[in-house]
């Protein structure tokens, strides 16, 4: 019995020691240095690999963060400031903070607002449709409604509304990764600063046609009348190519332009109902009027 145990020990220990010695020298001789911080940074990232940062995946972004001196041009839109602060802490640097953003669709050309002028019959993607022609309505700038943006959204934040035929952004899920901005052949998405309660005011139109033509093709088109431009107290509105544009950084959400717009091309979202508006809706909806009057009395 003793002999067996001795043999056993000798054999295995011999193998073990050989292995250890070899491994030791090997480890010494062929050391490959890789910055351990890359792993740490990668761990701090959301691991969505969406490419919203402009790099090929999270690991690639992490490497760039570690290698570069500053964070210039390095921002993870998905993780936002929180993640960037973490990354900065790992690397012992200051983080660049960026206001959180959200994607908005600059088109309100619903089936109702924008009548069809032809029937498209081809592969159902916006990219292909736009390679054939301007679209199946009179407006060449509006949403084609095939949902290329929905397809590319990794965060389930975009859905097609079957009634309007337009995509709808789910603000709570949108990470402003910018995939939809790239996917839309009509460049209808814009990343805008998130305001309190996700309130926003923007011109939901990209139609560069002259007023008359634009209005003819879509009832809610921006006709470039400049009324909003004139009424804006903060100089947040600029005019170009027959279009008004509201700069989200300057806009104070005063809503003056919204009432001014003759075509309702400016959209306000997330505000409590206005007095004047409630009356309008009340007229449109008699049931509600009754309820309201009950409460009042």
């Amino acid at each position, binding site marked *: 019995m003793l002999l067996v145990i001795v043999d056993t020990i000798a054999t295995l220990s011999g193998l073990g020691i050989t292995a*250890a010695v070899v*491994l030791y020298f090997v*480890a010494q001789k062929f050391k490959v240095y890789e910055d351990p911080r890359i792993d740490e940074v990668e761990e701090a990232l959301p691991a969505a690999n969406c490419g919203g940062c402009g790099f090929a995946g999270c690991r690639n972004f992490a490497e760039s963060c570690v290698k570069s001196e500053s964070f210039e041009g390095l921002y993870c839109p998905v993780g936002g400031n929180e993640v960037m602060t973490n990354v900065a802490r790992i690397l012992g640097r200051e983080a660049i903070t960026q206001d959180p953003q959200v994607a908005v669709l600059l088109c309100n050309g619903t089936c109702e607002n924008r009548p069809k002028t032809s029937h498209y019959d081809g592969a159902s993607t916006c990219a292909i449709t736009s390679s054939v022609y301007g679209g199946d309505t009179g407006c060449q700038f509006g949403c084609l409604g095939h949902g290329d943006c929905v397809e590319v959204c990794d965060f389930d934040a975009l859905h097609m509304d079957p009634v309007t035929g337009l995509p709808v952004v789910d603000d709570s899920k949108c990470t402003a990764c910018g995939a939809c901005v790239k996917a839309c052949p009509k460049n209808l998405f814009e990343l805008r600063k998130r305001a309190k309660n996700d309130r926003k005011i923007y011109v939901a139109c990209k139609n560069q046609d002259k007023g008359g033509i634009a209005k003819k093709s879509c009832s809610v088109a921006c006709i470039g009348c400049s009324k909003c431009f004139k009424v804006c107290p903060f100089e947040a509105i600029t005019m170009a190519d027959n279009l008004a544009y509201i700069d989200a950084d300057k806009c104070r959400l005063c809503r003056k332009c919204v009432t001014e717009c003759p075509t309702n091309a400016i959209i306000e979202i997330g505000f409590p109902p206005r007095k004047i508006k409630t009356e309008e809706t009340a007229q449109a909806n008699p049931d509600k009027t009754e309820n309201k009057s009950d409460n009042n009395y």
Partner: protein
Amino acid sequence: MNQWRNFIKGFIKENPVFVLFLGMCPTLGTTSSAINGIGMGLATTFVLVLSNVFISLTARFIPDKVRIPSYIVIIASFVTVVDLIMKAYTNTPGPNGEPSLYDNLGLFIPLIVVNCIVLGRAEAFASKNSVFSSFIDGFGIGLGFTFALFILGSVREILGSGTFLYPALNFKFIKGDGMLAFVLAPGAFLALGYLIAIMNIVKKRFAK
């Protein structure tokens, strides 16, 4: 950590076979019957528990560079222990001369050593956690593995030979043959594929 949750995770949430896709070789190779599946599962559990406990005890003394070789030697030792024990006590042929459990599991007993579950748990859990947690973890994962093997073994045995837990239950569901393909290699793959698909759905339901 809640030890009960630590224990139960191996069954559905982190089931090594259905969810993590680890230890596929013995899963497929030893599940021609439910009993074989259980036997393999328990043997693996035994190794898993002991190596988890032992490694959580010694992890702090082992230098990083020789971590993997050391773990492998420890695991291999427990595997050999299991091998010797099974060779001694589960090597009796069945009443009609069927091969013994040890013969059925055959090559897959020494191969427990390269079962990714064992080394995986040692690396990911035991080396960082307390002895008791590691014990529970090993036990839970091991039983989860056994559970998976049992399910797969049962499906294959019922469809393939028309028996269940034979020879413990000597009962035949159908006259004549079962679908032999399920006893053979192809059936193992097919049954496991569909079981994983079903488990995907079950898991989604659990998550909700």
